[in-house]
């Protein structure tokens, strides 16, 4: 490959921090008649504003001009130099920063001779990298200013309403016939003390009346294609099949309540009911009772479901308070292993339940409460861990508080969007600072589909997801390198040499972002890479048997040449 790149090299003395250890003069002389170096200068410093101005003047803006900076590390002042040059019109891809300070001078003070040799090698490695580096072409698309929200529970309608406020068209798709998700099953939203019901009303109103919302009840997604900024989603709504084109997807499919199966003689004894059945009675005539017992952590926080579903404690507190309001002289006891009411609002609610007269007994996982009675519940026996004695509570009502578990078709939806799911079946998300983003750019998840949450948190997550979707679409041009929220610029996008590819599918199997796919091409299979999905990690390159897939910015030749230059 004939290359006419002219590389200009600048070695920074860093006010003696580098030049005291590394003999820059000998390196400069060595580079003078290097075939690829046009000019090589030694400067006192590179990173101050005035130096960057000086530097930018000496670098022509032509596409062939390359810059090799022998200075400090990117994390030290290197970043400031490159950003400064970028502001003055020099493409950072044409700059190679060689770390002579943190990487060489400062860690080999006591051996200047070999430090100089190492610096020379590092410079040669930098030249090799600069020469061999190609550039992945950036893909630019016009993001669709529409968002698909799946699920019309509290999280879904909050996301939809928020998107409407941001001026984005929303396709609200829900499996059920009526919006509201789990809220339809309950009378009051726990904890009703903090204004959540008013928020839900406001959202329902916005979603119901805004022209920007297209609501498809009773529909089911059948196919998904595309990537961030340009998804094509096909779904069946009632009888007809529809296809929409959206820029981002917010999954708010929620979760379902787990039935206790045969635990605590449920279904066998009259009077043993679940929280949902109790809620149904609150919506109806209400329940006359003299003594009721709630049992927490039923079918959860145990061997086969090792997680805490977080909402059952606040919900039981709400139901206990409601029972006491309807039966003022009744006795309500909650048997629990830990009351999960973190923060201020939920802790106050816990205190409010105590003041309302709810009694709490702590039991241990290994000694669960026993339910006695022939057909009707008569007595509960439980070993009270605090007092160390067995308690006998006669009660005619036992409410089993059960957890939220993932929907049955969560696996199907995850398959459609290529999402990972954790061991419990909830959708996996990225790091702590990106708690609603999935591994696929443009697909966000919020509400109980991600992890069981109360309505108040689901609403917050809906708004946050709407804001993140808006941040993604709020531009006329979405470029593949700008998408990832992790960093402002993706390092490189994989490129396939279709001629060499044997279609073995290793890259398709290993890609953590499902960016590779096989396409039939005259009878044989060839791999293609979706620029939008690819994040440039390079997993595919290391499993491709004949190197037909490469990261242009760090191709195999570049690594090979750097290896050669390492100890030349």
């Amino acid at each position, binding site marked *: 490959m004939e290359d006419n790149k002219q590389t200009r090299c600048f070695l920074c003395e860093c006010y003696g921090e580098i030049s005291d250890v590394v003999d820059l003069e000998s390196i400069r002389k060595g580079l003078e008649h290097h075939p690829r170096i046009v000019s090589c200068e030694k400067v006192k410093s590179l990173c101050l504003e005035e130096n960057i101005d000086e530097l930018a003047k000496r670098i022509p803006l032509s596409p062939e001009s390359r810059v090799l900076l022998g200075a400090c590390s990117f994390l030290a002042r290197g970043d400031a130099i490159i950003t400064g040059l970028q502001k003055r019109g020099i493409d950072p891809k044409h700059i190679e920063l060689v770390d002579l300070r943190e990487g060489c001078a400062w860690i080999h003070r006591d051996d200047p001779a070999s430090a100089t040799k190492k610096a020379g090698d590092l410079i040669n490695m930098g030249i090799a990298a600069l020469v061999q580096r190609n550039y992945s072409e950036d893909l630019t698309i016009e993001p669709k200013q529409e968002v698909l929200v799946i699920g019309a529970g509290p999280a879904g309608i909050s996301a939809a309403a928020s998107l409407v406020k941001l001026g984005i068209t929303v396709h609200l798709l829900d499996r059920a016939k009526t919006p509201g998700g789990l809220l339809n099953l309950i009378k009051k939203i726990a904890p009703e003390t903090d204004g959540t019901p008013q928020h839900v009303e406001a959202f329902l109103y916005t979603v119901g009346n805004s022209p920007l919302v297209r609501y498809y009840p009773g529909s089911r997604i059948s196919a998904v294609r595309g990537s961030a900024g340009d998804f094509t989603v096909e779904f069946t709504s009632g009888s007809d099949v529809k296809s929409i084109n959206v820029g981002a997807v917010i999954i708010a499919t929620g979760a379902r309540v787990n039935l206790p199966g045969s635990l605590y003689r449920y279904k066998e004894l009259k009077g043993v009911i679940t929280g949902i059945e109790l809620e149904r009675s609150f919506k109806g005539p209400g329940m006359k009772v003299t003594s009721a017992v709630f049992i927490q952590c039923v079918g959860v926080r145990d061997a086969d479901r090792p997680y805490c579903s977080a909402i059952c404690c606040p919900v039981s507190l709400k139901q206990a308070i409601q029972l006491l309001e309807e039966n003022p002289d009744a006795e309500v006891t909650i048997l629990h292993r830990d009351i999960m009411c973190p923060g201020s609002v939920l802790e106050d609610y816990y205190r409010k339940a105590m003041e309302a007269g709810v009694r709490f007994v702590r039991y241990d996982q290994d000694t669960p409460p026993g339910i006695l009675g022939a057909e009707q519940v008569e007595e509960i026996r439980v070993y009270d861990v605090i007092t160390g004695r067995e308690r006998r509570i006669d009660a005619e009502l036992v409410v089993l508080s059960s957890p939220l578990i993932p929907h049955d078709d969560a696996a199907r939806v995850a398959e459609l969007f290529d999402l990972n799911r954790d061991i419990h079946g909830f959708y996996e998300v990225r790091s702590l600072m990106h708690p609603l983003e999935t591994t696929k750019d443009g697909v966000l998840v919020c509400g109980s589909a991600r992890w069981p949450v109360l309505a108040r948190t689901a609403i917050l997550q809906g708004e946050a997801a709407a804001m993140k979707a808006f941040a993604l679409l709020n531009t006329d041009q979405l470029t593949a390198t700008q998408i990832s929220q992790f960093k402002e610029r993706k390092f490189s996008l994989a490129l396939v040499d279709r001629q060499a590819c044997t*279609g*073995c599918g290793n890259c398709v199997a*290993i890609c953590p972002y499902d960016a590779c796919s096989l396409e039939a091409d005259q009878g044989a299979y060839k791999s293609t890479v979706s620029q939008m999905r690819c994040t440039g990690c390079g997993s595919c390159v290391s499993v491709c*048997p004949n190197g037909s897939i490469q990261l242009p910015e760090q191709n195999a030749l570049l690594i090979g040449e750097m290896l050669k230059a390492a100890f030349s």
Partner: protein
Amino acid sequence: MSLVEDARLKAKNALEEGLVDGVLALARVEDEPYPYVFEVAAETGMLELEPKWLLAKLAMNILRSSPQDYRLGIICRGCDERALNELSKRNQFDPARLHVIGLACSAEQARICLCTKPYPASIALGEKSEGFDPREDERARMFLSDDPGTRMQHWAAELSRCIKCYGCRNSCPICVCEPCKLEDDLWVRRGEIPADMVSYHLIRAFHLSDTCVACGGCTDACPVNIPLMLLQVAMRETLANNYGYEAGTDLERLSPVLSDLTIEPCPPLMEPGWLDSLKVNHET
């Protein structure tokens, strides 16, 4: 009825019933065995089973160059069948167009090939016989001895006789890449005989780390008689111990190296101690 007659009968029936359009097997022409595609039922009289001849790559090329609806039968041994599984996992041909007639190898054939599983999944011809552990073979014992020094001496001495004829790569049923990395000057310097032991042989061996079906093709093809298959023994054992994975036996299961630890757990890597602690111990 002897094994050969049984094979000829099965091939004839397959052709007559129109199950396949041709059967790939050996034929004896002027007393020399040749791979031959029997398309006429009568010719199956010339069908032979000996000697062992690896037909997997041949079958793939036949299927690739024949029309889409051409169905091929093949009389193939255990290693061929495993090789065909690996190739179909790599989308090199459509397995539906292949009709496998499994032939079990004899115990001494297994002894020669150092084969641990000398029988296909579905045995149509011959009986299952005992596999042979490569570590028992006395020549192999030197190459796989416990002391690294002797191992190195043997391997260095043997590999220094390599004339880089690429016979091992060409005969290996899995190697289908063109261009192949071993011909790229970046990985293996050109014009150097014997081939650079580390870069040529180890790169080739590692490319087959999770796909080698231990058919012995490389050892048979090597003109200077280097037991190349022994390079794979340690890796195949690691895969079997850590993941319970053997190449070519399960069409659905992808190589465990292509998925993360939550999907294909690997015991030594799972304990955080091994990786997380700074005092990373490497006595695997």
